[in-house]
């Protein structure tokens, strides 16, 4: 019976998105989007501030990055949001050319629950071995050696991962793939992978809840969730060999490298000495030609203006308030130039 509910819920989401689009007229434009839950707190907060400014209503459904891409492909939303950029295969599977641009970045932190231990250092090797199931106990010599002075209990390690498909998993497994040849060969990276050990929690809140309720657990969560629940998290040794805590500065440093013109970049394992190594951007995807499905010019303009505003310093400041990292100026400039390639009947919409 549950699946009927799921289908109905999805049908309702799609239906409401659809009607929202149809109702769009000159006086009150309604935009809709769907996708990433990683970035949802930022988008919903920012959209709430945007509506009184312009009268444009924006609805956003946090249905997961893959769901966002699928909704855009089915043309039931105006934009899709994903923490994993589109691969070439996914690009060609879209019914028409799309553009994608990052909107902010965030860190994925290694949160843990050990009584009396607030701080821990992890190397990429040890982290990969924990997730490969090779380090099974907290009093493993490898952990003790890294953390002199920390008294680890004789407890099994409970590895926690995301059971649902997730951009957070994409970022984390991309990092593991870069630092561990064995992980790369056996499991690879993606929004869901075939985890060798551990238990799955649903959504970032599910993983954070499981860690905070399970003595001996370690897992990866989007930083906001660990900060909010005050769960301790580890410093991770970056490519330059420095143990580094995930915070605003170290996550910004990870995003500082050069951005390719198509913005498709993973910023895990950054070479920057100040950078925290497990971080990632989140993207918005829209169609390059906005005249489809009887869309009006007003609708297309509203969409482009919305994202132009989301790149402004006002909106990016909102991102920072809720623990996301605003885009560097160079990426904002690149994003703005991408937005200006979006057309309506072949003519650029934004000047």
């Amino acid at each position: 019976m549950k699946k009927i509910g799921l289908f109905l819920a999805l049908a309702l989401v799609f239906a409401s998105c659809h009607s929202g689009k149809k109702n769009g007229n000159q006086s009150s434009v309604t935009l809709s989007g769907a996708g990433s839950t990683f970035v949802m707190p930022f988008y919903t907060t920012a959209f709430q501030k945007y509506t009184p400014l312009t009268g444009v209503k924006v609805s956003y459904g946090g249905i997961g990055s893959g769901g966002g891409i699928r909704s855009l492909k089915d043309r039931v939303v105006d934009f899709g949001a994903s923490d994993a950029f589109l691969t070439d295969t996914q690009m060609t599977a879209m019914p028409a050319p799309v553009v994608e641009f990052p909107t902010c970045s965030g860190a994925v932190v290694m949160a843990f629950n050990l009584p009396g231990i607030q701080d821990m250092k992890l190397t990429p090797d040890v982290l990969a071995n924990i997730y490969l199931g090779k380090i099974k106990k907290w009093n493993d010599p490898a952990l003790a050696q890294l953390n002199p002075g920390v008294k680890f209990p004789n407890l099994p390690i409970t590895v926690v991962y995301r059971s649902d498909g997730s951009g957070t998993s994409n970022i984390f497994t991309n990092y593991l793939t870069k630092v561990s040849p064995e992980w790369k060969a056996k499991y690879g990276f993606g929004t869901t992978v075939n985890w060798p050990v551990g238990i799955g929690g649903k959504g970032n809140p599910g993983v954070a809840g499981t860690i905070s309720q399970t003595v001996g657990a370690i897992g990866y969560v989007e930083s906001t969730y660990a900060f909010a629940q005050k769960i301790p998290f580890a410093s991770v040794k970056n490519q330059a060999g420095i143990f580094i805590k995930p915070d605003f500065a170290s996550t910004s440093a990870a995003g500082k490298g050069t951005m390719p013109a198509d913005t498709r970049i993973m910023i895990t394992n950054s070479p920057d000495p100040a950078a925290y190594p497990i971080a990632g951007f989140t993207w918005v995807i829209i169609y390059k030609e906005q005249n489809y499905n009887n869309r009006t010019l007003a609708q297309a303009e509203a969409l482009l203006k919305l994202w132009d505003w989301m790149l402004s310093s006002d909106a990016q400041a909102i991102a920072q308030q809720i623990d996301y990292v605003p885009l560097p100026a160079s990426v904002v400039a690149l994003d703005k130039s991408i937005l200006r390639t979006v057309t309506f009947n072949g003519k650029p919409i934004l000047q």
Partner: protein
Amino acid sequence: MNSDKITKYILFGASLLILVLAGGMLYSLVEGSVPSFRVFGWKFLVTPEWNPTQGDQHFGALAFIVGTLFTSIFALLVAIPLAFSTSLIVAEYFRKTWFANVVSTCVDLLAGIPSVIFGLWGFYALRPFIVSIGLSHQGFGIFTAGLVLAIMIVPYATSLSNSIIMMVPNELKEAAYSLGATRLEVIWNVILPNARSGITASYILAFGRALGETMAVTMLIGNANILPKGLFSTGNTMASVIANEFGEASGVHLSSLIEIGLLLFVITAIINATGKYIIKKFA
């Protein structure tokens, strides 16, 4: 047209709509499963690996089929003694007393609690307890999920068997008492033989309900896509893997999830049909 006819057409239309909806659901499940069936064929049913990593995708449902049956059967085994005792208390021993009223109200209350509440209770209360008595070091797995499932299906098993036990003709019981039978003898020799098929059917229907439960199980089973190795091993169920991976899946991955949905649909339909058949045949 008179009002009688109008009512008839409205009722007919409404029930036809239900038929069409059920048929449509089955059709879309079958249609959605085709791409996965083309790739994996019947092997899908016996392959335990579930690997959604891009570029190395291969899917099999065995781990989830086993996980689903394992948790549901365990839940049923735990639920039967509870449900059976409750039924006897409510329908026989304390029939029509305040105590039976309180018990049956509580059982009905259990049926009305949303499954996410059961999940939360399992997560925050039962799981730490299981860890503290040393049964498992993290508390997730078949055992915890099955225990919570058992409590969830007790109302389904109880309410039907209550009415069936109550339906046993009083004349029969009185006749047995007049021959000097004790209460226990009446239960074993009169009530049970009369109500056996109905009680069995109610447990089968409760089992069907356990198969499809999603939320509480997802929160407690550990969501590890592996063949469960024992009662305290983590695992995953068919309903729970669909709920977990549906949002992000595409292509063959999505089609495989829909095929699991189809399997669950078929298994649940068979279980329900068996229950109904037993009621019809032996009642």
